[in-house]
């Protein structure tokens, strides 16, 4: 393993900024410092336009930051090639999105199996691994269903199962309950709590404070600046 820096933290942002080269330039993220330890459950709260999405994209290695250092498991992400960053996304980060992003023409289990496609991994046992992931979210009985036949909460659980496949170091979710009613939202958050109990590191981005309340740490973002609530 590469030598970890930042006291074994899972990820560490050090004065990370993201400036968009528009006219005038937009400072979406300004000197962000953030350290997340393995096993943390962190909520990032903020209104729309606060820089939440930019932070999500930087954390998820979907976007390159303009300045500062971002270490993931001690590795400086800035120095990685596109393919290595893609590998990091594929193996280390599980994404959960607001609108689930399931493929409508594929069964539930096939949707979960998709997570392994970009890992250049043998297909042997892929279905079994997907079934195990579905078991963790309690959906084994829906494995052969098409996603369109599932409720919103069930669809989000399929998406979580997909994110869990291969046991990533970080579960990164973007408004995971944004498309769900409050009762279903609670159930999804209960599932997150379970996963947190099991030792998963969870970062969720939300604009709803009752969702953020469930996390251990709450970080506010406003105008691209982070501020941790203690």
């Amino acid at each position, binding site marked *: 393993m590469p030598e970890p820096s930042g006291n074994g933290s899972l990820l560490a942002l050090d004065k990370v900024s993201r400036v968009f080269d528009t006219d005038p330039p937009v400072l979406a993220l300004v000197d962000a410092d953030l350290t997340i330890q393995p096993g943390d459950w962190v909520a990032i709260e903020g209104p729309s336009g606060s820089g939440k999405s930019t932070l999500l994209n930087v954390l*998820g290695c979907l976007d390159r930051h303009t300045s500062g250092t971002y270490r993931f498991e001690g*590795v400086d992400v800035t120095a990685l090639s596109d393919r290595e960053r*893609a590998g990091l996304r594929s193996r280390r980060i599980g994404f959960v*999105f607001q609108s689930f*992003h399931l*493929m409508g023409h594929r069964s539930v289990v096939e949707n979960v199996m998709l997570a392994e496609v970009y890992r250049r991994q043998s297909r042997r046992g892929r279905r079994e691994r997907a079934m195990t992931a579905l078991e963790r979210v309690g959906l084994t009985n829906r494995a052969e269903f098409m996603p369109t036949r599932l409720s919103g909460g069930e669809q989000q659980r399929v998406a979580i199962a*997909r994110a869990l496949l291969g046991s990533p170091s970080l579960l990164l979710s973007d408004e995971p309950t944004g498309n769900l009613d409050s009762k279903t939202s609670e159930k999804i958050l209960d599932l997150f709590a379970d996963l947190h109990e099991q030792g998963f590191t969870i970062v969720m981005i939300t604009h709803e404070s009752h969702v953020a309340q469930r996390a251990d740490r709450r970080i506010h973002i406003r105008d691209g600046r982070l501020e941790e609530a203690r």
Partner: protein
Amino acid sequence: MRIRRSKRSSRAPVMQRSGMTMLDLADEATAGLFARPGRMILTVLGTVIGIAALVATLGLAKTTGNRIIGRFDELAATEIFVTAKTGTDGVTPESLPWDSPERLQRLEGVVAAGNLTNVDTDGGLISTSPISDPTSQTEFELPVQAGSPGIYAATRATLATGRFPDGGNSERGDRVAVLGSGAALKLGITSVAQMPALRIGDDVYLIVGILESVGRQQDLLGSVIIPEGTARSTYGITTPDLVIIETRIGAASLIARQTPLALRPDNPAALTIASPSEPQRVKDAVVNDLNTLFLLLGGVSLLVGAIGIANVTLVSVMERTREIGLRRAIGATRGHIAAQFLLESTAMGFVGGVVGASVGTLAVVVVSVTQGWTPVLDPATPLLAPIGGAIIGLLSGTYPAVRAARMEPVIALRSGS
């Protein structure tokens, strides 16, 4: 691929790069295509039509080309007509020697040769009855031709009845005649069993045979043919008008070059040699014009097909924005995204090529059957067609694939719900 992977993992890399096995890539592309099967079929249709038109054109060109050569093989490719140039310097009336057939028979490759000369009968009419019947016509104006014994073989003449006059008839100047089928019909002669005779002017000739058909020199069928020796002694013809040569297949051009020297070593330029190559070339040119037109049509439909694929793939890229975003999030690089869309469009082109080649081949067979031709198709044509289709798919998928690859995952993920 697996070897590379195991190498990397044993080295404990800084960060494992993302990657995709060929099998997974093929799977994802197939799934992408079959998500909308109806649209895929319509998209492929353009390529199908284009490839089918090309294959059918090439096949029909080959088929018709083969047909023409087949017909010419029988006759035109083996015939040579020799005439004397008239009015040129140094040409005597006796331009063609009487022994031309004998001289030509000595050449390797000559199957048969014979002289043919129009006989001027001085207005003598032809009749079979000595009595003038006022109620029906008994005297006819028919062409009379003098033929050397070899002329029948050289024109591929067949007999309906009787025999051909031989060399002896010619040498002795016998008064015998052969009727063409048309001439026989006119004169009302159907059989030579009763030894019918005819009169040319005042001379009486024994009819020894009636022609059924000739392969070449069709005017013989409407003529009265008398032996050459007879014509020389009776009508004083001075030189053969025409020498007809039948050669072995493939020997025509050689014999055509040798003939002037064999017949007129003193003045080869005095002869006109008509050999088979020219009419064939004319036919070829006609076929080529048609080919060009159809190939052009096939090309245009292929272009339309390619634009169709490009268009649909582009629409598909726009529609699948969310999917692209998701794929990027779960580890796809821009390259992986581009590869998948390229593979999808290439597969569509390939399938279009396969189906188009089948349809085109079928069209060649159907047209050939209805026309009674032998279908001929270069085996490379249907085999190359799918490759051509795949290349078209690849090219037309390039721009959409680039668009898909350039898409920012951030925007792609947030779009719609």
